[in-house]
């Protein structure tokens, strides 16, 4: 039995030392005029007010050629075609599942966008429709890819690849979508002994690295065999590391997660989330990331 009671810690003012602060960045708050030049195109997070391009959210200005958008620090997931997401089934409807993906509307997974057992090109029969809950039921987690975006902003997902599908045993960590770095692949088998899916929507799935035999399962069979203890330890440690990094707003990608994992090894797993230890670990991770960059 362990209980750790303490007084709340006073937040440290982060020193905004001029050297490496925000000089490279253009930060705006709602109502700030970004430019009155009419040659630019209006992107997300901006609006036109009297011919002036004005910010509507607080964040960093991003300029791609003529397109100006403002990326807020924290927001719901704004999905784009090709994004990898992890989501939870909330409703089984006719020929479709409703999936919670941290977007502003529930996403949709059509029955026609999943690989059913027995081959890709099989026709969807009436029996399939009735048996939808056997494949995926309320509460189940899936990994999927954004197939298209409806006009109202809702996402349509698909799992037509062996890497997507229903998720088995593991741990879900939810962070802000803006903390997940966009990469070529969001599936990683970390060398520390576990695998990770970094969903673009901020939902991160940690699971034991699958053995070879799991490959042909087609994504709808999940093993309920107990996960060995060492794997669990790694997963739990990774989970706490992810939360620590997210609390300190460090971008999440395979290297940052791995560095954090390594610097946490000197501490007990359950202590990682204590504020002072969290500070220490994250500081060390940052340092290593900087070294690697520089």
């Amino acid at each position, binding site marked *: 039995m362990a209980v750790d009671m303490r007084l709340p810690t006073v937040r440290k003012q982060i020193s905004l030392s001029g050297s490496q602060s925000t000089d490279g960045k253009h930060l705006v708050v709602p109502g700030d005029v970004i430019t009155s030049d009419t040659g630019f195109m209006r992107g997300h*997070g901006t609006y036109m007010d009297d011919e002036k391009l004005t910010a509507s959210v607080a964040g960093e200005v991003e300029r791609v050629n003529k397109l100006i958008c403002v990326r807020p*620090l924290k927001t719901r997931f704004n999905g784009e075609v090709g994004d990898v997401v992890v989501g939870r089934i909330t409703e089984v409807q006719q020929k479709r599942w409703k999936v919670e993906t941290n977007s502003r509307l529930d996403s949709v997974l059509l029955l026609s966008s999943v690989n059913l057992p027995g081959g890709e090109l099989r026709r969807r029969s009436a029996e399939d429709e009735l048996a939808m809950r056997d494949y995926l039921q309320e509460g189940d987690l899936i990994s999927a890819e954004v197939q298209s975006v409806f006009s109202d902003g809702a996402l349509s997902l698909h799992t037509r690849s062996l890497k997507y599908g229903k998720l088995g045993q593991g741990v879900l960590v939810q962070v802000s979508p803006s903390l997940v770095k966009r990469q070529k692949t969001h599936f990683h088998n970390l060398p520390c002994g576990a695998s990770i899916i970094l969903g673009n929507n901020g939902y991160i799935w940690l699971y034991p690295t699958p053995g070879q035999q799991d490959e042909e399962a087609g994504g709808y069979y999940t093993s309920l065999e107990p996960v060995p203890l060492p794997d669990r330890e790694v997963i739990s440690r990774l989970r706490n590391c992810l939360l620590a990094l997210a609390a300190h*707003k460090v971008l999440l990608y395979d290297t940052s997660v791995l560095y954090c994992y390594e610097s946490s090894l000197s501490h007990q797993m359950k202590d990682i989330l204590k504020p002072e230890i969290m500070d220490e670990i994250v500081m060390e991770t940052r340092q290593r990331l900087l070294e690697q960059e520089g």
Partner: protein
Amino acid sequence: MAGLELLSDQGYRLDGRRAAELRKVQARMGVFAQADGSAYIEQGNTRALAVVYGPHEVRGSRSKTLHDRAVINCQYSMATFSTAERKRRPHGDRKSSEMSLHLKQTFEAAVLTQLYPRSQIDIYVKILQSDGGNYSACVNAATLALVDAGIPMRDYVCACTAGFVEDTPLADLCHAEESGGGTTLALALLPRSENIALVQMDARLHQDHLDALMEAAMMACKGLSKVLDSVVRQHLQEVSVLTRE
């Protein structure tokens, strides 16, 4: 309240402020982890918490879904211990329902709801400690929470109260000044365009003074907007320093 002099001959108010002086404002964004956006504000002794959820799928009856913009849903409540005399219910009485409605109207004017068709944005505010200017504290807290949640707005919405004593407009009234029965004006302003999102006034005031009173309230709102602006910029800077790649 005959014996109580709201403005001394030297021009000081009950709590020692000048007529146009605001109370001390402290605020913080991102108080809670689970909500999409949250903020806490202290305006003198008035303390308010605001939490924003969404935009998300419309909950409850589907019928309230709007197909061209987002639904804004507000609930105002007061902690039972927030007032000097204990409140029986945190919300649900006429005054709180009216306040919820006013908040909703205020933010419908400011949030760019047309960007989010068929969704819903929940704004919940809670007064933890009440010492006058509850509406304005709620509006200011909710503005910060909306910014925290990354929901697009035309501009900040800043609200402040103003009163009128002996031909002098007083800014940012505290509870003692509000309850005296004098004129109270609450104003929610979009400071940059000087658009008024909501105006509400109580008790008698001669028409000729309205201009001065509104001007004072607008000045106070602009003062507040500076504070909010610095809070947001500070927050923005801190976080973006951290997230640099």
